C-alpha cells in the first residue's frame, strides 16, 4: 500500500529525513519509534503533504502511484489520514460541521453526491458510540477548549468517519490518561481491517500494549536504523534509545 524509497526531505533548507525506506502492506500495523528530534513527525507531515516540507530525493508511493505532486487534500481523498499530535482549533466550526464538510469534499473529489443527511447522522451516531463520545461533544467548536484527551479522541473519531486506507497516528498517546488511552486504542483496533493499514508514531511503548504492531522501526537522525517485531518495542522500553544511538554513531 505505502512504499517509501530512499526518502530525503528538508524544511527551511534543513535536511531532516536522510534516506527512509519503508513498506507498509494492507492489514499491517507499523510502529515508528525513536528519540526526540529523530524525524518522526516530519515523516508523518511529508507523507501527508505539508507544503513547508521539501522532498529532496526519493519517492512516496501509494498503491504504486507517486504522490509527490499531489496536494495534501488530494492525498486525503486517496485515503491518507493523519491524526495530529497537536490538533488545531477552529472556533465556531462544530465537530459535526467539520467532519460533514470533510466527508462531502472527499465525496465530491470522487464525483459523488453529498452524503444524505440521514446517513451522515446515523454514521456520526454509530462512530461516536464506538469511541464512547458524548453527543454534546459533537456540537462544540472543533478542538476549542478541548482537553488533551478530547482532542485525541476527536482525531480518532474523524478517522472512524473518514475510513482511511492509511492512517498515520502521530503521538496519539501523548497527553492521554490511561482510560482515554484505552478508549482510543480500542477504537483504532476496531477500525483496523485487512484492507487498511496503520502507522503509529510514538515515543513510548505504552500505546503498543494496546495496539499491537506487526513491525517496529526505530528512527534516528533521519534514518530507520533498526526494524523488528513487537519485541523490539519492549527492548527499547527496557534499555532506552542509548544503545541504538551508540550502535549508529559508532
Amino acid at each position, binding site marked *: 500500500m505505502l512504499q517509501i524509497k530512499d526518502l530525503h526531505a528538508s524544511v527551511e533548507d534543513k535536511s531532516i529525513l536522510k534516506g527512509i525506506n519503508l513498506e507498509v502492506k494492507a492489514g499491517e500495523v507499523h510502529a515508528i519509534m525513536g528519540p526526540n528530534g529523530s524525524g518522526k513527525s516530519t515523516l508523518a507531515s511529508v507523507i*501527508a*503533504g*505539508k*507544503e*513547508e516540507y521539501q522532498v529532496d530525493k526519493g519517492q512516496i508511493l501509494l498503491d504504486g502511484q507517486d504522490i509527490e505532486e499531489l*496536494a*495534501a*487534500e488530494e492525498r*486525503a*481523498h486517496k485515503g*491518507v*489520514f*493523519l491524526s*495530529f499530535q497537536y*490538533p*488545531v482549533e*477552529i*472556533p*465556531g*466550526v462544530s465537530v459535526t*460541521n*467539520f*467532519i460533514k*464538510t*470533510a*466527508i462531502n*469534499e*472527499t465525496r465530491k*473529489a470522487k464525483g459523488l453526491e453529498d452524503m444524505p443527511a440521514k446517513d451522515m447522522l446515523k454514521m456520526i451516531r454509530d462512530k461516536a458510540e464506538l469511541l464512547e463520545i458524548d453527543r454534546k461533544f459533537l456540537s462544540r*467548536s*472543533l478542538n476549542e477548549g478541548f482537553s488533551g484527551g478530547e482532542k485525541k479522541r476527536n482525531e480518532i473519531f*474523524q478517522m472512524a468517519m*473518514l475510513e482511511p486506507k492509511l492512517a498515520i497516528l502521530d503521538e496519539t498517546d501523548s497527553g492521554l490518561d490511561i482510560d482515554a488511552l484505552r478508549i482510543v486504542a480500542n477504537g483504532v483496533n476496531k477500525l483496523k481491517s485487512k484492507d487498511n493499514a496503520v502507522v503509529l508514531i510514538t515515543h513510548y511503548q505504552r500505546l503498543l500494549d494496546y495496539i499491537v504492531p506487526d513491525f517496529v522501526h526505530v528512527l534516528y537522525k533521519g534514518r530507520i536504523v533498526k526494524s523488528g517485531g513487537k519485541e523490539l518495542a519492549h527492548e527499547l522500553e527496557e534499555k532506552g534509545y542509548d544503545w541504538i544511538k551508540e550502535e549508529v554513531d559508532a
Partner: protein
Amino acid sequence: MSKYTEDDLREELKTKEYEYGFFTDIESETFPIGLNEDIVRAISKKKEEPEWMTEWRLEAFKVWQAMEEPDWANVNYTKPDFQAIAYYSAPVAVDPNKTLDDVDPDLLAMYKKLGISVDEQKKMNNVAMDIVVDSVSVATTFKKTLAEKGIIFMPISEAIQEHPELVRKYIGTIVPTTDNFYAALNSAVFSDGSFCYIPKGVKCPMELSTYFRINQGGTGQFERTLLVADEGSYVSYLEGCTAPSRDENQLHAAVVELIALDDAEIKYSTVQNWYPGNAEGLGGVYNFVTKRGLCEKNAKISWTQVETGSAVTWKYPSCILKGDNSVGEFYSIAVTNNHQQADTGTKMIHLGKNTKSTIISKGISAGKSQNSYRGLVHVSARAENARNFSQCDSLLMGNECGAHTFPYIEAKNKSAMIEHEATTSKIGEDQIFYCNQRGIDTEKAIALIVNGFSKEVLNKLPMEFAVEAQKLLEISLEGSVG
C-alpha cells in the same frame, strides 16, 4: 396633473449651461450630470411631489452646500466630484402602475443573474420585495397581502403621494437633513427607496425586503428608507445591494431611518455587495450611508449587516435608546479584500433608564485592505442602569492588510455597566493544513474558518439570507490566499 416628462426637463434646461447634454440610452433615462437647485427641483417634479417635499429637499440642499465632506474616517480615497454625477437614472420600461408580471423581461433576467428571482422569492420565501434599480423602485410584491393587515410597504416616492401625513411626520426626524454631509445630500436628491409602516400590535407575517441595484454608469444612488413600527408591532426587514463592475467610482449615499414606538421591535438586516473595485483597486462603489433608529419605551432595534462589497464603506447603523427599557443591537460582519477600505461600526446612545445594548462586530481583512471598527457607546446622565456589551473580533489573512478598532465610551451615569472585549487573530497555515489533510481544499478551508469566525452574526440573519451571506463571504475571499 400631467406627467412631467423628459422632454419638459430638456426644454427647461436648454437655456442653462451644462458641459454634457442629455444622456439617454435605450433602456434608461438619466438626468444631466451636476447638482444645483434646478436638479433638485427637477427630481421632485419628476416624482410629482407635493410642495412641502420640494421645499424640504431645497432646504437640505442649502444645508449641504454649506457643509464639508467629512475626513475623520480611516479611509483614503479621491473625493467624488459631485458635479460629475447624474442624480437621477431610471430604466424607462418602468411604469409604477404596472404589476410584477408586466416588468421588463430584461430586468427580470438581471434579477435572476443576481440570484434573486422575484417569482421565486415571492413563492418560496414568503418575502415581500421592493426592488430599486438605479433610482426607481421597480416592483413591490405582496402589497395586497400586506395591505390586509394594514401594513404599508411601498416605494417611498409612492408613499409621499399616498400617505403624505405619515411620511411628513417621520421623515428627517431620526436623521435630520443637517446630520451630516451625505445625509444632507441624500435628503436633497434621493429619488426612491422604501417606506414601511406596521400598524399598532401587528406582527408582520413575512420578511420585508428591498433589493438595491446601481445599473447605469456615471450615476449615484441615493435611496431613502423610512420604517415606522407602531406600538407593539414587529417587523423583520432585509436589504440587499449590488452593482455591476465599472472602472469609475460610483457613489451610493443612502439614509435609513427606523422608528420603533413603544413595545415595537424592528430587525433590520443588510447584505451589502456593491462592486468592490478590481484587484488593483480600480473602480468600485463609495458606500457612504447613514442609518439610525429610535427606540421608544420597551422597544427594540436590531441591526445585522454583512458588508462584503464597496471600495470604501463609511457606515454606522445606530440606535437611540430613548425609551426606558429599550434595547439596541448591532451585529456586523465586514469583509475587505484587495484594496477595499471599510470604516464601520455603530453608535448606541443610551438616554432612557434600564436601556441595554449589544455590539458584536466581526472584521475580516485580506489582501491589501483596511478594515476599521468605529463605535460609540454613550450613556447620558439620566440613563440609570444602562448596560452595554461590545465584542470586536478581527481576523487577518496574509501580511498586507490591516485591522483597526476605535471604540469610544462616554458614560455620564455612574450606574452604567459597559463591557468591551476585543480579539485579533490570523488564519494560520496550521489550520489550513489541518483542513487540507481532511480532504478540504484551501479555498473551502478559508470559507469554513471565516464562517466559523462569523457564526454569531450569521446566526442573527433570517435563514434564507444566512445561506446567501455565507456564499457571499466565500466569493469575497476567493483568491485571497496565494
